[in-house]
């Protein structure tokens, strides 16, 4: 019998060879799980739609002054973006902060020009003084610049979906394999999450870990995977489930705590051999029971924070009105409440001595084919505020060394603009944050961004990635406690990126 989508593919490749591969792998990894004495967690932020990371992190080196940056610096960037380029205007972070509180009395919003999103978007950037990172941070994200300068965060440069290292000539000749359906939102987002850039059918890499560690969660309402945005492929395993939650307090089904609840459970319990009805029934019973238990635990302990956000409000404050951000559009208030909830959930996970968890959260709305300079600001602003608050929260909760937060996005966007936005592309810059990562540096390579240039897979600045997502995820999973022996099962392409015999030579340099 076919065991799983992943095994199905393996089996079909092996032409009927029966390999009880997964069973032995499971046994070894359970040992790894139980050796975890310390709660660890990964926060996976999906910037849905394809973040234009060239507007978030602006290549800011002067090409004429340093030939190392030819086709990689500000001149090339701005020449390909007629009306959505961020100005070559270096802003000083220090002039805007007092102990890193934005000085609102001095009208100190660094992104404020005349109260429009467009002007804030293109005003300028913060250079990263304490590092040699060749990017500047958009003026809408002073908190990000601050976190990088403080060594709390690093930039992952030119990350993307890759099956194996590939050059422009190899893309054009088709002589090496690259991910199928490049530039398609749903499938590129999916292969980031399957952990196999050539394979759209596999389970999620976190789902694979959840299957391995299933025993550690079997008696608990908690799961390895927790989603605050539906049912991502990342968390899909063969047999393990994950929690699908919403921001804030877990809500219970009303009226069902007594006799009526017993009837609900009985109605949805069936002994007949009806797989769909049984499955749906279990989902309903589970929703009733687990949310009652979760709600009890949640309301019994609520973390409080002494730190304040950059506006001097409590952490994770949301700004329904635009008066404080001085942007045309209010924040979505999507990521801020999700990360506040994640922090709270982590305290519960830690108190139950779970071996580890992964949290999936989303910020939506990044597909800026048009009106980029009026729509991107609110998203960059929320990302910046959310990561700042989350960093403070992790420190206060004593979790900072046990948590790594990483952003991902469907794909980067074209270095060349269309009328007033950008189109789907390939490599992009991401952010990684945590107490145990190497902070304050650029991980990966600075690519040429010239249209038609050496790194452009085509003609509009669709930059070929130089580091694959799997090179970043593999050390993360290893850090969570999964042995190297299991990594090549989870990330089947990982070995393609080795620079020596050691598997870890394929790891991106995040720790």
């Amino acid at each position, binding site marked *: 019998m076919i065991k799983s989508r992943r095994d199905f593919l393996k089996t079909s490749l092996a032409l009927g060879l029966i390999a009880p591969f997964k069973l032995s792998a499971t046994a070894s990894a359970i040992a790894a799980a139980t050796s975890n004495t310390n709660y660890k967690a990964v926060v996976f932020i999906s910037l849905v739609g394809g973040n234009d990371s060239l507007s978030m992190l602006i290549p800011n080196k002067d090409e004429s002054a340093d030939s190392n940056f030819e086709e990689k610096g500000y001149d090339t960037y701005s020449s390909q973006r007629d009306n959505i380029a961020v100005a070559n205007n270096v802003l000083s972070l220090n002039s805007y902060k007092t102990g890193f509180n934005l000085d609102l009395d001095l009208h100190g919003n660094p992104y404020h020009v005349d109260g429009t999103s467009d002007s804030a978007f293109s005003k300028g950037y913060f250079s990263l003084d304490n590092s040699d990172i060749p990017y500047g941070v958009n003026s809408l994200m002073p908190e990000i610049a601050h976190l990088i300068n403080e060594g709390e965060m690093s930039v992952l440069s030119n990350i993307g979906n890759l099956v194996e290292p590939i050059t422009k000539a190899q893309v054009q000749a088709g002589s090496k394999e690259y991910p199928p359906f490049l530039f398609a939102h749903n499938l590129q987002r999916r292969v980031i999450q399957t952990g196999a850039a050539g394979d759209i059918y596999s389970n999620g890499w976190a789902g694979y870990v959840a299957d391995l560690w299933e025993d550690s969660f079997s008696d608990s309402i908690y799961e390895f995977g927790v989603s605050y945005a539906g049912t991502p492929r990342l968390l899909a395993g063969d047999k393990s489930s994950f929690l699908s939650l919403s921001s804030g307090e877990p809500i219970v089904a009303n*009226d069902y705590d007594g006799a009526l609840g017993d009837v609900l459970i009985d109605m949805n319990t069936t002994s007949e051999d009806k797989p*769909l009805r049984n499955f749906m029934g279990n989902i309903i019973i589970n929703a009733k029971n687990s949310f009652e238990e979760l709600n009890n635990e949640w309301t019994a302990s609520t973390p409080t924070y002494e730190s304040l956000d950059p506006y001097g409000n409590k952490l994770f404050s949301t700004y329904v009105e635009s008066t404080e951000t001085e942007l045309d559009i209010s924040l979505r208030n999507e990521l801020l409440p999700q990360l506040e909830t994640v922090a709270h959930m982590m305290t519960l996970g830690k108190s139950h001595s779970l071996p580890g968890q992964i949290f999936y959260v989303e910020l939506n*709305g990044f*597909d800026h084919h048009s009106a980029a300079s009026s729509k991107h600001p609110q998203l960059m602003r929320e990302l910046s505020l959310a990561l700042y608050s989350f960093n403070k929260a992790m420190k206060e909760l004593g979790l900072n060394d046990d948590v790594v937060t990483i952003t991902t996005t469907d794909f980067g966007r074209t270095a*060349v603009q269309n009328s007033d936005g950008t189109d789907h592309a390939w490599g992009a810059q991401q952010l990684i944050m945590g107490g145990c990562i190497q902070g304050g540096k650029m991980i990966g390579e600075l690519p040429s961004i010239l249209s038609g240039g050496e790194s452009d897979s085509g003609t509009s600045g669709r930059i070929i990635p130089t580091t694959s997502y799997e090179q970043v995820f593999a050390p993360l999973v290893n850090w969570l406690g999964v042995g190297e022996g299991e990594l090549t099962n989870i990330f089947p392409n990982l070995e393609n990126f080795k620079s020596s015999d050691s598997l870890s030579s394929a790891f991106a340099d995040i720790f």
Partner: protein
Amino acid sequence: MFHRLITLSILLSMATACSDSSSNSDLDAYEASRLLTQATFGSTKETANDLESSSASGWLDKQFSMDSAYDDLSEHHLNQETNLGQLRYIMSVYSPENDAYSLNASDEEFNNEGTYGVMRFYQMAATYHLFLTSEEQLRHRMAYALSQLLVVSTSETPLSRRVEAIAYYYDLLAKNAFGNYRDLLQDVATSPAMGVFLSLNGSQASVGSSSTKPDENFAREVMQLFTIGLVELNVDGSPKLNDDGDLIPTYEQIDIENIARSLSGWSVDNSSRFGRVGNTFGIYTKAMVDWDLEKDESSEYHDSGAKTYLGTTVSAGLSATEEMTLLLDTLMAHENVAPFVSKHLIQHFVTSNPSSEYIERVASVFNDNGDGEKGDLEATLRAILLDDEARNANAYEEGQAGKVREPFLQLTDMLRSFNIQGVSDSKNVLGEPIMPPLFLNYRIEGYLSQAPLRSETVFNFFSPNYTPSDEYFTENNLVLPEMEINQGQKLVTQINGFRTIIRSGNLDSDYDYSCETCGTYNDLLKMEFSPLVELFKSELGDDYENNNSTEVDDEGLTPKQRAIKLLIEELSVSLMNNNMPEDYVTLLTDYLETNTMGNDYQIKIAIWHSIQLLTSSNEFKILK
């Protein structure tokens, strides 16, 4: 063991009966209700009674030939049985002080205020009006299914304010619901809603030395999501493979770039400049214009150079209008369109996991309706609903049949089952006492994780390929798309949303529908439960003392037991396709017998609880 044998013999006899079933034979009560659950916004006692003892094909004939509000759209904005007409009617009545909302306002004047946030709720009320009350149930159900294929949404600025664009777009779907897919594509591609949603509006040719490129958004999705998909398909929906056993992509990036060039030059019609959109300018209730051709002959927004895509060469010098025709003809001619569109519709009406034979039968009709026409949606829909895999409830192995129902269709089913009515919102500044009833459901998205034409992205509310992490489904390679929004916290929220609507929105409650509550965004939906209360009471001889009567009838039932039996039979018709499972009957009976039914209110509470339970049950959430 004995019970199991009986069950088996019943199943066997059913199987025999059903194997004779054909689309022309008369439907029994269950079959009638099941067809209506598949093809309408919910079976009601009346519609099921009407259909019982007639045939499925007869019902379809009636639906297809019905006089329609969409037969003549020349006075579109005055036609209250369309989405736009209903929206304009609501706006004219509820905001009579504003000339922009008058029925006399031109397309250009309408909504030129652009800042009336509540209008999006009124547009939803217009959609509810059509879905819940229209006789043209199949047309609207088809339009709704199409809205989840050809997705637009208020999620893109400024469509959340310019909801007349959404209403107009919906009407294009409804107008073409029984027409031809090629005509529908034309209307969709040139609609302001799609133009704004996928930024075809304002996409322009590269000019001079500028590195600016035409926008690729619509160029990509019109192929990936609306017509041909990502890989070459056989007519049965299975992927074609090349000699190496690999999937064959339908297009390359260069095709998208050239199609983007081909599609440059379209703009929402407005009096200022090309591609400009906003809350207060532009006409959103007529097709976009080919700017170079229709607005400014000196402009060159369209890239009229020669280009090649999908193996088709386009010669230089054609207008944007001509190139749109060429592109849509090319896509329509592709072999993928039939299986691609057919499978989507089958999954939305009948089953998540159709056999390849079923897809092929339907796709073949899409390819040729018998008169040599490709893309006939009426013929396609007929093939879908009259197929044995649709009509025969036992056509599949247990577990592979049917689908999980969308939360929204669960809701409309419940609402229609209990005579849903809108509520007069007397918010009128003139304080007029009589206002047209509105179906206001402000919190629908919060309750259900979905609402018509309100998807977060062009990828709809759920993926057609979603498989839950459950061994049965992963091992058998089965998808359950709607399950994506039927689990976890979303499911709990949905159950609580149903509870709120059941409890607050019914005719008999003391709920205050007056203007005082209007501003607080309360949902104004009311179902009618009083007939059920009356039924119960009449069995007690209108005397609550009879609750305690031990006198039994021929079947050995006390008055209270008899009342409960009849109530459950009614609920079975309303919510369970007249086929409530035996264990549900037993459980509900036991529960209700322990309830005190000493007055009207207690009876009503018991009815509410029963409906809450049934709508939170696996049987209700599954369409078999």
